[in-house]
């Protein structure tokens, strides 16, 4: 999680300037396509709503011509599907500043026992931020993914048996 789209150098949450709150995803295109990520993106926000502010606008920041082409095409499809004007911006990527540590993997950082386990796996916080496992756990805690799917994923998350059981309990208690 971080800030993008603006001109102010070294933005922070308290001094964001003209930047926008942004998520940046490193992905393996052999596992998931950019088109699939775009599909998820359109399902994950309300594109016909005007932005309250530059800080909270919706946007795709494309990294190359191919991403630009796919993003524009997906916007046109979305517009046809919902039959409304799209306010989501399609903009060139010009840089990304990581947000402060307390913004990263926000739901996971609320779970102290699980965080102790991740701190052992990733002594450097930067590695924790970049971790696919941490991103997945954060997603499950945020209500994405089912308990049944978590049971399949659990062995790959690096948690102890106790940590795994705790995560499963938390996800089950949220009714996923």
């Amino acid at each position, binding site marked *: 999680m971080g800030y*993008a*789209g603006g001109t102010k150098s070294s933005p922070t949450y308290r001094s964001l300037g003209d930047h*926008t*709150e*942004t*998520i*940046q*995803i*490193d*992905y*393996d*295109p*052999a596992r998931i396509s*950019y088109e699939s*990520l775009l599909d998820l*993106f359109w399902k*994950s*926000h*309300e594109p016909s*709503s005007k*932005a309250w502010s530059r800080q*909270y*606008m*919706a*946007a*795709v*920041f494309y*990294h190359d011509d191919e*991403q630009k082409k796919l993003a524009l095409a997906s916007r046109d499809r979305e517009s046809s599907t919902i039959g409304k004007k799209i306010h*989501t911006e399609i903009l060139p*990527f010009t840089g*990304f500043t990581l947000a402060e540590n307390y913004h990263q993997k926000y739901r996971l950082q609320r779970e102290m026992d699980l965080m102790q386990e991740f701190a052992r*796996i990733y002594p450097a916080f930067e590695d924790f931020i970049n*971790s*696919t*496992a941490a991103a*997945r756990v954060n997603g499950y805690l945020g209500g994405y993914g089912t308990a049944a799917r978590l049971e399949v*994923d659990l*062995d*790959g*998350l*690096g*948690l*102890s048996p106790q940590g795994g059981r705790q995560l499963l309990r938390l996800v089950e208690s949220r009714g996923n």
Partner: protein
Amino acid sequence: MDNINGDRRVAAADLVKQARALIPPIDLVESAQIETATFALG
């Protein structure tokens, strides 16, 4: 003797389990082709 070997097998299995737990295997590895996508969700 059988018990000692059995204990060793259990200990070895525990070590493998602990070692697996240290490195989450689903993390993207450096050799994989990685691309970047950036979105703002409003």
